[in-house]
């Protein structure tokens, strides 16, 4: 599903250049449930953003579902994101002025799916994360755990092949974190690849494969 070969990435400012990824080779197969671990600043988010086509890499090769992701225009990247990928963020990133249902339906809007179908599907996915009764609530009327479940429903609704989650439990307490991970497990059982960035060991333990980053390199188990 995902193949990285010698991926390098550095952040350049006028005088300095900070190499964050120093040649990552990585394969993630369809249906994998992977966690990326490492200390703060080790480049986890950078790697995930590259996988999510939210950021560009300098050298190397990244193939997603057999297609080389290189020098994409913004529009192409948007298309692939919409087609293949679902995102879950640490700070949820729901649109504050939209209800839970409308937030969940948003990716389908950019897939040009008719409104009625969007609404129905949004309800269906909210039900999957146990929030059907909260469909018309605004994000600020919900707890952190509920908001993250809405965000997961939103990531799932476009039926992506891969879900990318950057510290999805970072803002949640232990119990809620475990609830969220349960949902991810369920989703993974349906064959969707899941990649989670975390620095919590107990979260990583719930995944099938752990990738450890240190100073921009992968540390083998």
């Amino acid at each position, binding site marked *: 599903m995902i193949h990285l070969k010698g991926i390098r990435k550095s952040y350049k400012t006028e005088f300095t250049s900070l190499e964050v990824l120093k040649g990552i080779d990585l394969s993630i197969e369809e249906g994998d449930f992977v966690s990326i671990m490492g200390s703060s600043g080790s480049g986890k988010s950078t790697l995930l*953003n590259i996988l*999510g086509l*939210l*950021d560009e890499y300098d050298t190397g090769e990244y193939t997603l579902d057999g297609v080389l992701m290189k020098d994409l225009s*913004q*529009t192409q990247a*948007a*298309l692939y*994101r*919409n*087609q293949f990928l679902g*995102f879950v*963020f*640490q*700070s949820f*990133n*729901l*649109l504050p*002025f*939209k209800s839970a249902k*409308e937030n969940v339906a*948003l*990716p389908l*809007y*950019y*897939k*040009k799916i*008719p*409104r009625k179908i969007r609404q129905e599907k949004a309800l269906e996915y909210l039900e999957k994360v146990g929030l059907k009764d909260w469909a018309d609530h605004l994000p600020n009327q919900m707890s952190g755990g509920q908001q993250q479940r809405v965000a997961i429903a*939103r990531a799932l609704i*476009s039926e992506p092949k891969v879900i990318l989650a950057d510290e999805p439990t970072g803002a949640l307490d232990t119990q809620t974190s475990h609830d969220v991970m349960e949902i991810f497990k369920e989703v993974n059982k349906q064959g969707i690849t899941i990649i989670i960035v975390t620095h919590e060991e107990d979260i990583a333990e719930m995944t099938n494969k752990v990738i450890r980053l240190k100073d921009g390199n992968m540390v083998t188990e």
Partner: protein
Amino acid sequence: MFDYDKWQEIFNTISKNKLRTFLTALGVFWGIFMLVVLMGAGSGFQNGVLAMFGGHAKNAMYVWTNRTTMPYDGLQAGRFTQITNDDIKAIENDLEDVLEYMSPRLYVPSTEVTYKNKGEAYEVRGDTPYLLKIDAIDLDQGRFINQKDMDDRRKVVVIGMEVAKNFFGKNKKEEAVDPIGQFIKIQGVDYLVVGVVASDRRGEDATEDNKSIFMPLTTAQQVTNRHGKIGWFVCTINTNYPVGLAENRIKTLLKKRHRVHPEDPRGVGTDNVEEELREIMGLFNGISFLVWFVGIGSLLFGIIGVGNIMLIVVKDRTKEIGIRKAMGATPRSIVSMILLESVFITTLAGYIGLVVSIGVVYLMKIAAGTDVQFFLNPQIDLKISLGALAMLIIAGALTGLVPAMQAANVNPVTALKDE
């Protein structure tokens, strides 16, 4: 072409960000509102002042006499000069090339005028048929004084509207009577009413005209026993000839004929509408400059306001844009969303501003009616208003375009970064 879904999304965003929408709308609304109301008020003022001249010929001049203040040619100062029929003839001869109409007048000293048992003091004027061409009165019924009346010194009168209403109008006791053919008494003598006139002026001037009675000049000269004498006269000058020049020629001629010192500021007095009109036109220029100055100022204010708010809006929405991009929004869809939103808001606000301001100008029109001096029938130049609105909308779109494009091209990672 009409993308229902897109509009749904836009309405959703607009209606849930009310303050932002309101602030954007306010600038546009205010700009259009001020411009249209100011234009309306300016034109109302202009029309009002112009109407005060009514049907007055713009090329008319007035000539009268008064006491001299300088001794001249062996005559002492303080002498009263009297215009006569001969003076009128001399002027008609001398200024034949430029004179259009000439209408001398002689007042009959204010007296009681009666019809049957009704009586009231009215102003009685001796006039010529040409008055109708020069002065701001219109024939309402019957006819005006004609040459035959003049030649035969007929005892006929034309009466003002108010006089007609008072004497012949319907009241509690009597039905209305046709004034034409009735006789009224002036100084105990019967005069046949041959016509009714209505003033074309406004306010007190109109009342004065409508409360007057006009008889042939020759008749007036006879009944006042002032044969050949004229009180004052009004005349019009061919429009291609400067009134001021004709005025000087007439003045010089009269002074010579009456042996008044050429430098004497009094003795012969003249006045013309042209000068007054020029002064008023100057005033208008000042007013319309002010209208444009303030109007364009408020328009600019509106444009800057819209532009500023668009900048803030786009900044404010960086995170939203990042989220939308992560969900698969293309840069194009982001730009078109922001632009459509801003154009929609500015168009709607501008439209409302236009409607409200037109309403306000209409109310001004009704409130002022025809009784308020200096203000009449305010008008709106719809072309200018729509042009101004278009300018605001385009400005809103343009000022929104640059930040929208920047925002749409921001790396989503940067946009989503937690502050």
